[in-house]
């Protein structure tokens, strides 16, 4: 996965090809081309600068323990961001993911501590089953989003705003707003091991490993399967996609479902990391997910975006958040800085798109 958001397979190789093409055509590498390659790598450059900066500014930033902490947080934003990237590429938005995180955590936590009460009996599921049930719930909320959006043509913003409240409400209802604490299960009930998702394997947080797996799979799907291209075509021009035979409604429903599943997975991981599930957890995380996607070059108007970009975006968010905490920057300033970074990122994005269009039109004139 690479960090810029065009469709080139890998960032470096096609760039070289371009250069050699230029040379063959006895054309100089223009200023635009150089600016372009810098722009494409901007988020990555920003990330490196941030890491360097915080390494100096906060003496304990570049230590194994803090990097581990950052990785744990990045995993959460990253997974949410991947689902969000798919949604935004279709030209939509999913505001419900933060609530699904909370709801997912409550479902998992409740199943462990209280079990499933039915017909006067209480059944305790083992952890793998709990994970499946939780993800299924996430998928269900996502499917509901997709259904409202495609069947009733409700704007994605409104539909997911509605489900955001609904999911949060159900999360609160599950325990009347209380927290399920110490969700480790009991040996006797056979439902131990939930903390696994918050642990480390060989020093790497399980969450980060899950992020990696989801990223690779969803990256390949986006790039190498008809489904992935159909997702991109819908955001680019839904009408044209439909007339080209893309089953736009089905693709959209699947995309929202996927986003819901990603959110439920994050709910499991975050509950596991805290060994407790709180119904308010995940509040405003949808904004972090959107920010990660946008920082990674996903276009809010749809059609353009990569998983790799979003991962880098998630890292930028994570590093800014945790780095500033370690520097002792106040929470209020953190918000301001985060906001500025996002706006600047979008500005640069627009600048790049304009440049790209100009270069396209230019080559159109040249081909004449």
């Amino acid at each position, binding site marked *: 996965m690479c960090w810029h958001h065009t469709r080139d397979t890998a960032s470096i190789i096609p760039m070289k090809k371009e250069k050699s093409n230029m040379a063959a055509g006895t054309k100089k590498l223009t200023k*635009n081309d150089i600016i372009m390659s810098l722009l494409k790598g901007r988020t990555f450059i920003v990330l490196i600068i941030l890491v360097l900066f915080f390494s100096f500014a906060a003496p304990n930033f570049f230590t194994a323990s803090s990097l581990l902490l950052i990785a744990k947080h990045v995993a959460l934003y990253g997974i949410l961001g991947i689902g969000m990237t798919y949604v935004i590429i279709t030209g939509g938005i999913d505001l419900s993911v933060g609530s699904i995180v909370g709801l997912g955590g409550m479902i998992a936590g409740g199943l462990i501590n209280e079990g499933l009460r039915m017909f006067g009996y209480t059944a305790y599921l083992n952890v793998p089953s709990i994970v499946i049930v939780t993800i299924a719930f996430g998928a269900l909320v996502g499917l509901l989003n997709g259904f409202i959006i495609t069947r009733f043509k409700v704007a994605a913003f409104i539909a997911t705003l509605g489900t955001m409240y609904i999911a949060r409400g159900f999360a609160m209802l599950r325990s009347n707003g209380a927290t399920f604490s110490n969700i480790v299960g009991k040996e006797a009930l056979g439902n131990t091991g939930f903390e696994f998702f918050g642990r480390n394997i060989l020093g790497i947080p399980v969450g980060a490993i899950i992020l990696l797996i989801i990223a690779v799979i969803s990256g390949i799907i986006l790039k*190498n399967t008809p489904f992935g*291209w159909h997702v991109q075509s819908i955001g680019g*021009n839904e009408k044209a996609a439909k*007339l*080209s035979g893309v089953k736009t409604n089905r693709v959209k429903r699947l995309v929202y479902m996927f986003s819901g599943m990603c959110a439920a997975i994050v709910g499991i991981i975050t509950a596991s990391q805290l060994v407790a599930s709180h119904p308010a957890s995940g509040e405003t995380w949808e904004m972090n997910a959107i920010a990660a996607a946008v920082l990674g070059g996903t276009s809010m108007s749809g059609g353009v975006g990569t998983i790799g970009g979003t991962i880098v975006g998630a890292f930028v968010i994570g590093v800014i958040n945790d780095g500033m905490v370690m520097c002792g920057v106040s929470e209020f300033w953190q918000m301001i800085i985060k906001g500025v970074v996002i706006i600047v990122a979008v500005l640069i994005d627009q600048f790049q798109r304009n440049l790209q269009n100009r270069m*396209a*039109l230019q*080559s*159109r004139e040249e081909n004449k």
Partner: protein
Amino acid sequence: MQKNENIVLHADRVSKIYPGTKALDNVSFDVRRGKVNVLIGENGAGKSTLMKIIAGIERPSSGRIILEGKEVSFKDTTEARAYGIGIIHQELSLFPNLNVYQNIFMANEKTIYNLALDNKQHVTETIKVLDRLEYPLNPETLVGDLRVGQQQMIEIARNLIQKNLKILIMDEPTSSLSEQEVEVLFKIIRELTASGISIVYISHRLEEIMRIGDYVTILRDGRFVAEEEVKNINVPWIVQQMVGQEKSYKRKEREIDWSKRETVLNVKNMKLPKSGGGFLLDDVSFNLKKGEILGIYGLMGSGRTEIFECLMGLRPEFTGTVELEGKAIKISNVSEQIDRGFAVIPEDRQREGLVQTMDIGRNISLSSLTRYMKGMFIDFKKEDQKINEQIKDIRIKVADKRLPILSLSGGNQQKVVIGKGILTEPKILLLDEPSRGIDIGAKTEVFDIIHQYAERGLSIIVISSELKEILAIADRIIVLSNGIKTDELTGEEITEDRLVLASYKGHRKHHTNEKGEK
């Protein structure tokens, strides 16, 4: 320069340089008072750029604009408008979310004491101006609900309410109008010129220019080529000046006994209700033979596009039977229709044909991706090979197929859309105005492509509102008027007169019916 009473605006050695190209190179152009000043050239010749400069949308890199003897320079269109220069864009620039009178008076609102909008006045003036255009529309209708031709009228009306209008620029005003609407437009143009307004007219349709134009200026590759009074010239001369060689589309007669060919598609009693009563399609029946090019001719709103929409599954509510290769089919959605062997090339290339965020190659393969699979994944090698074949087959001029789609000219973009349809290996290809907005050279090529595929056995239905075009291309033509099939012509029967006549019939029939009922 001397002040010349007959010349209202003079563009003096104007150049426009975009990064990398010279769109205009030292072009001088006179707008004569009360005349129709025609500007012609192939796509990319610099017509639109020159117009944009005159209308204040772009600023020249060098050169001067002299309006009634005084040098002027416009910051933007508002300023140009204040000087009495109005423009009607090729791509309509209306607000689909607002109604007719809001669109007409946008940024030119009538108010009561500079505060409240005077909508009463808006409505009355809108009715007045639309009456003048002989185009009565309800001023409260949403512009988004209007057809393209109707929207064009709104664009014109919007400029007409300008009090001091001196120059009206029309960039391909007829490209989406029906013959009938063109007549109305020409009448309006005559009225405007008679009242002293100067028209700058850009068009690809040469016959039209011969009819309406007074002076012709020809541009090629951003340079001035020739200027002449229309009465001294003819169409072949214009074409020669434009392309440097003579070109026109010839009718290709095909020696095929169609009665012996098998019928691929048989549509019977197709009926499509209109929202608010009446029918968009009223009992239309036709068939299509293998390898045949069937033309559908009709005016704006005659139901031509609706036939395609029914066949492609965009209007599953229609009634009637459709038989594909002898078997009745139930049409419910687009992707199913594509699987059955239908492909459509939509009328509006930008809005319905292309995915602008994707590169050239992917726009070609988008419809047929699932055919190039290796397990779960796209077989990029095979896809690549198919794209290359298609690019070669329909002669898309492309430097690199991974470039953005917008780097292609209009004609080549259109070929991409056609290529996408053909890659699905259809049995029936539906083309809706395939030559809209592309230059003559590309048009001939598109026609050649259509013929080439028909020869290979592909059955094709072409919608066109250009008489000459449909005459040249179709083996058989059906004419629609007001949702009714009014005529069907083959071979020798196909004449301009008969087509035009049939294209009004449906309305007459409808009117008498109404009277009869009353």
